[in-house]
């Protein structure tokens, strides 16, 4: 009694495995040869295209990986041997690129404090603190700026030719500000000056970074450019002092010391500067899930509902899909095709739009459901009605898929099996319960498990309908229909901006939960397969 759905796959795999060893290279048709050449050329061309920015940015590691990948691809496909590798390579590369690397990256992020205010390096934080503290000196002059040079426009050392509101002209460079004689001032700015060549806008723009960096020291600070046609006297309010590894406010002398464990500058009373940097925090994000009352408190309750939601969605869609499949399985039914097409329709619609429509259908005052049935149910307002509502939506969205696979699996069960059962005296129910269902489950259990795993993390199903509502009045953190993923998403991204490190730690935990459940389920399925095959 072998499940037919499974065997052909095995056979093909087996044949292929025994195929390759001693055979001489197959001759491939001209079309295949051309296809191969074009595909490889495109690959190489893409690689070259991608290599230029890597070289420009001096990303040698990235370049090395790229060269290695292209070399492996060319080697495998240009050599007449290694047939299995030819089949495995694209999948393996995609697996590494889209599964292994993100997982490693997530785990890597989980042990940092990466997030808003902790995105870059300490040096970047210091630069940000200092630049954002540069203020215009109170009562200082606003200058009209002409960028000029004593040498050639493209490379000569820069000077600032400045005109104050009274019309007096100055020249400023690293030595300070001096009056400028022999300058033509036109429309409030220097248009020509002896011994200097003025940069036009294009030239100044080309040397933009130099213009931005250029400062003319004064008693109270320094004159800096604002754009390329104005300058102001500014003073950095906060400066980094490498000796004490701290930031000091020049006006008040207040000090914020660097805390390299948390990646922030903090003063004696515990106030932090907004700009911090990314540091390794070890397992702090993981311990926070357990120790932080706001996180750990509702965790157990949400987990139970989450399991119920995933199981309810998976089993509910399976039951409904199977029911439809059984009903349409009878060859005597007329218009089967039409029914099948109608049943599959929900599957063909984009679930995003459908979720939003269902949200509106469940609206208390304006929703279709309440109006049609003349009900007054506050669907998303009560915990249980909201839970029933989201599962109903999942049922509607998910059953066509189960209907499809169940139809396929039913057709794969040989008729003789049913006939044999009937001859042995089994009724319709017994036949279904003892023969058809077990055979179906052999083929469909893996799908059920993956459906469970998918629904366990079905973020959109909740976020586009209830958004986790209803929320208990005294706890805006955890809602009645919140799944772990929506609950954690809110914790990691709504408060204090984005906390990627914490979010990554949560993802790892959810991943672990789903992995354990799936592993146990698969083990049990295998045991079942052994019984029935």
């Amino acid at each position: 009694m072998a499940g037919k759905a499974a065997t052909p796959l095995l056979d093909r795999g087996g044949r292929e495995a025994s195929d390759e060893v001693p055979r001489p290279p197959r001759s491939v048709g001209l079309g295949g040869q051309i296809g191969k050449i074009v595909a490889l050329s495109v690959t190489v061309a893409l690689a070259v295209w991608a290599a230029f920015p890597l070289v420009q940015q001096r990303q040698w590691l990235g370049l090395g990986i790229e060269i290695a990948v292209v070399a492996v691809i060319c080697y495998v496909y240009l050599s007449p041997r290694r047939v299995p590798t030819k089949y495995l390579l694209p999948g393996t590369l995609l697996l590494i690129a889209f599964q292994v690397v993100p997982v490693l990256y997530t785990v890597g992020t989980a042990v940092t404090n990466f997030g808003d205010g902790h995105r870059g390096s300490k040096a970047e934080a210091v630069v940000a603190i200092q630049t954002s503290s540069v203020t215009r000196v109170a009562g200082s002059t606003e200058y009209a700026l002409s960028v000029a040079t004593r040498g050639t426009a493209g490379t000569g050392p820069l000077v600032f030719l400045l005109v104050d509101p009274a019309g007096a002209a100055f020249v400023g460079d690293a030595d300070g500000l001096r009056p400028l004689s022999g300058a033509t001032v036109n429309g409030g700015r220097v248009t020509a000056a002896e011994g200097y060549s003025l940069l036009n806008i294009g030239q100044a723009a080309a040397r933009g970074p130099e213009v931005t960096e250029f400062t003319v020291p004064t008693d109270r600070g320094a004159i800096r450019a604002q754009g390329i046609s104005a300058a102001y006297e500014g003073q950095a309010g906060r400066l980094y002092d490498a000796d004490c590894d701290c930031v000091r406010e020049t006006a008040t002398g207040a000090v914020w010391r660097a805390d390299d464990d948390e990646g922030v500058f903090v003063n004696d009373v515990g106030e932090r500067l907004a700009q911090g940097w990314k540091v390794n925090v070890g397992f702090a994000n993981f311990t926070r899930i357990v120790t932080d009352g706001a996180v750990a408190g509702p965790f157990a309750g949400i987990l139970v509902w989450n399991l119920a939601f995933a199981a309810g969605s998976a089993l509910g869609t399976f039951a409904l899909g199977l029911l439809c499949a059984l009903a349409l399985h009878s060859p005597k039914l007329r218009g089967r095709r039409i029914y099948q097409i109608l049943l599959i329709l929900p599957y063909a619609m984009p679930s995003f739009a459908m979720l939003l429509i269902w949200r509106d259908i469940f609206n208390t005052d304006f929703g279709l459901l309440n109006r049609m049935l003349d009900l007054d149910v506050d669907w998303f307002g009560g915990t249980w009605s909201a839970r029933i509502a989201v599962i109903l939506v999942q049922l509607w969205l998910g059953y066509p898929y189960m209907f499809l696979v169940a139809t396929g699996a039913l057709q794969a069960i040989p008729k003789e099996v049913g006939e044999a059962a009937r001859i042995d005296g089994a009724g319709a129910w017994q036949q279904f319960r003892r023969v058809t269902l077990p055979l179906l489950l052999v083929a469909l259990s893996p799908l059920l498990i993956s459906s469970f795993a998918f629904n366990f993390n079905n973020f959109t199903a909740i976020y586009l309908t209830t958004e986790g509502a209803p929320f208990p009045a005294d706890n805006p953190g955890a809602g009645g229909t919140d799944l772990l993923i929506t609950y954690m998403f809110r914790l990691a991204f709504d408060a204090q901006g984005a906390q990627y490190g914490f979010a990554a730690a949560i993802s790892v935990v959810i991943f672990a939960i789903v992995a354990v459940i799936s592993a146990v389920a698969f083990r049990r399925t295998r045991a079942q397969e052994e019984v029935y095959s």
Partner: protein
Amino acid sequence: MRIRTAGVVAAMGLALAGAGCGSDTPSAEPSATAGAGGSLMIWADDKRTAALKPLVAKFGQELGVTIEIQAVSEDLHPKFVTASQSGNPPDIMIGAHDWIGNLVQNGAIDPIQLTDAQRGSFAEIAVKGVTFNGQVYGVPYAVENLALFRNTELAPQAPATLEELVAAGKQLKQSGKATEILSMPVGQVGDAYHMYPLYTSGGGYLFGVKPDGEYDPKDVGVGNPASIAAFEKIRKLGEKGDGALKRSIGHENALSLFTGKKAAFMISGPWSIADVKKAGVKYEIEPIPGFAGAKPAQPFVGVQAFYVAAKGKNKAIAQEFVANYVTKPELAKVLYDAEPRPPALTAAFDQVKASDPDVAKIMDAGKGGAIMPAIPAMANVWDPFGKASAAIVGGAAVPATVTAAGKSITDKIK
């Protein structure tokens, strides 16, 4: 880019030739000379991108640089932060002023030193909006705030108080002319932005104000007796009271209730004007009325602004552009034509006011409004405040709900 294209063409040719295809190798095109003044990249949302495109081309010519403008239709703010972090941001970004706290925290934008004359050319509240920690971080181009939209056929009388509004709405409901008293989005999770005017009229506040006029994250007003009193008043408007506020009205249906003439009053902003006009509703725009004998209803005032990226490649030109071109009425007018939000530039505002009285009315409704807090602590307020307001509209007990929301907010502020 040129070099890359040429390289690809060459590599394709080589690869084809090497593979024995025998096709002739196309020669690499000569690389064009780079533009003398470099280029400027601007990120904005779709609407503004379309409107700005012809104008920036002209400004680019004047400046002698190529200005490119790219539409980022979704998540402009996080995308900009991520791009900054990887060292590859656009030179200029256009967005709302309440992002400033977060952008500064992430070192993504730099202060802009406007001259006194330039500062003076903007509405005072617009400059206040883009000021953070005493520094101006963006050049504003538009201000926006909520107002009351009234269907003048259904409700010919302007209500002076919320109570009058409710009475008028109830009467319309009884006579069957309307089905709702007021269209204001609440939804299942609440909407702090729309609730704020009613909350302030009831006497509540979110953050106290420091002596220098900026919001103080250490003085949270949610959870104090005044906020509880305010929410008691809001609860009376809710589902267990007058039924003027409902969780069943959210963003998805608030506008259609008003344009479909099912509600005579709507609380919304300038972004709704175009749709209301299109629906052919005879309307009037007024300040949001407050509770009788209470404080005036203060809407949040939001400011749309241009920011210079701290890690941009062409900061000098970007600063030049925002300081000298965004301050031109011409640009403000074009942005206004794309979407009728009141221009922040006084000269431009006066220009459009003559042809569009609605803009002036929106601006009037925003008088006495509170600038939306840009401090990072505000991120902790939206969610708990919104949910508390939804719960209270649904009839939850006020003191426990508001106290819990206040605690949730203060717990998260470090």
